[in-house]
């Protein structure tokens, strides 16, 4: 019965995602081929990556409130990206910026370090502070550079899927699927981590190296997502919650479904954000935060209720 439900939801999401590029004015083939379809593929790759990163980060930090955006990881990517373009550090493959990767990785390392000793509230506060660092650097950069660049800055702050190019998009999609495949293969280890760190250790799971692998993989995907589409919040919070609620926490199922649903939902959300106030386009990050922030508060309150009971 559960599988039927799963297939139905996925089919519905696929149908909506397929309709999404056709939303809006001017549906001739050239617009679709040149703008809408690459944009939808980018939205899928970004959505899937963000959702999967959220799932993995929640697991290694043992905290279901964690999410890349809340933890300030994209801020690290933004910081690195700006540093890279100012210093003209070349990327190795399309869409990949070494400095954005290192920025994300170092912010991630700070969070993991804090999480080892401190409580949820301190982890989240650290994330808030990292976000402050990121946004102040973007603002500084906006102030110092010429006005034509401020559009790009807004894009980082609020997320933007409109500047899609095939090369970087395919890179992200490919790496996203690679990360998915790897952690699907390691799903037994991830499952053991559901029992908490010390029990997982006693079952022989190499917790420390697993944590490093997650950190590395999420930094990779997040840095590319940020370079391509800016900061899109809360996808990594909402999708894993929803998927765990539907299919349970076991990773053989939750890893691929999180990526799939995350991708499809961002394609749909992008269609809606383009179409809702046409001809104006709502930045996708504004849209996801609009839904995601209340959702965060809901999860927070539910969690506290659960703890008290």
């Amino acid at each position, binding site marked *: 019965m559960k599988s039927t439900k799963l297939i139905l939801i996925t089919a519905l999401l696929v149908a909506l995602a397929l309709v999404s590029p056709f939303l809006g004015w001017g549906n001739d083939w050239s617009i679709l081929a040149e703008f809408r379809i690459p944009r939808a593929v980018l939205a899928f790759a970004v959505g899937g990556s963000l959702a999967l990163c959220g799932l993995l980060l929640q697991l290694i930090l043992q*905290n*279901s409130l964690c999410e890349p955006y809340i933890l300030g990881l994209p801020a690290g990517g933004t910081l690195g990206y700006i540093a890279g373009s100012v210093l003209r550090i070349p990327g190795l493959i399309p869409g990949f910026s070494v400095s954005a990767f290192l920025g994300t990785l170092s912010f991630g390392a700070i969070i993991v370090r804090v999480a080892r000793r401190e409580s949820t509230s301190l982890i989240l506060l650290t994330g808030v502070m990292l976000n402050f660092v990121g946004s102040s650097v973007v603002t500084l950069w906006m102030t110092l550079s010429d006005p034509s660049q401020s559009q790009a800055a807004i894009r980082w702050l609020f997320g933007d899927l409109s500047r899609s190019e095939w090369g970087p998009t395919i890179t992200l999609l490919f790496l996203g699927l690679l990360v998915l495949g790897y952690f699907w293969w390691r799903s037994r280890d991830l*499952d053991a981590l*559901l029992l908490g760190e010390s*029990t*997982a250790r006693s*079952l022989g*799971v190499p917790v420390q190296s697993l944590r490093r692998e997650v950190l590395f993989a999420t930094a990779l995907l997040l840095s590319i997502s940020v370079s391509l589409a800016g900061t899109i919040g809360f996808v990594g919070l909402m999708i894993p919650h929803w998927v765990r609620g539907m299919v349970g926490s*076991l990773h053989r199922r939750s890893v691929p479904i999180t990526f799939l649903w995350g991708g499809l939902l961002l394609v749909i959300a992008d269609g809606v954000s383009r179409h809702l106030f046409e001809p104006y386009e709502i930045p996708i990050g504004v849209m996801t935060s609009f839904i995601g922030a209340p959702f965060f508060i809901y999860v927070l309150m539910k969690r506290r209720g659960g703890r008290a009971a």
Partner: protein
Amino acid sequence: MSHSLFELREVTSLGDDRREILSHFTLALDPKKITILVGPNGAGKSTLTSVLADVKRPHSGAVVWKSKTPADFSREERLQTLGYLTESFSIEFPVRIQDFLKLGLILRDEQAAPRFQEARAHFLGDLDLEREVGSLSSGERQRANLARTMVQRPEFLVLDEAVSQLDPHHLAQAREYLLERRRQGLGACLVTHDLNFGLSIADVVVSLSGGKLRYQGALQDWKTSGDLDSLYPGAKPHWVQDPMSGNELLVF
């Protein structure tokens, strides 16, 4: 004989504040026997069990399982060799009891089914296996955890206050479970402040205080050794005979 022991050799373990919790601690446990660890709060009992289970790395010294280091065990061998339970655990994510029982284990279906039956009959009789572990009470969680070791079925169990929240019925079930394991040659090492429970199943007593070994020996020898008289400063332990069962009980 010595090739099958679980050992700590000259282990020193430090707390977060770099204070020595165990200092140059050497201990060898017989895997076919039940050993109870006793000592006052802060003696280092929990640290000892977590180091023994290879969950916490010691600052110096070595942990030896059956004359190998734990790192030399493959995942599957390790699961068959040692199981470790603590007093409580928090579970952040929704996991059903039936999934919880096999998380992280490597089991073939034909192995799993009978073990599941047994675990259910012993500890989970009244629980719906579809329920989420997060919704269980602390005692029910301890039962689910013990049931998980029944599915894992390791040679040696390390239990750190893992039965502290059980009701009398399930405490009796836990006693029966540990004694049945011992009859099959599968031992355990347990930390418990319920000394009458621990002493009713123990073959060997290990006492420690201040991170140092005080006494290790057979239960009967320990009772007459006088170790207990000074183990818990300020407490006045004495033995009384239970008129119903005739067993000796410890009263403070």
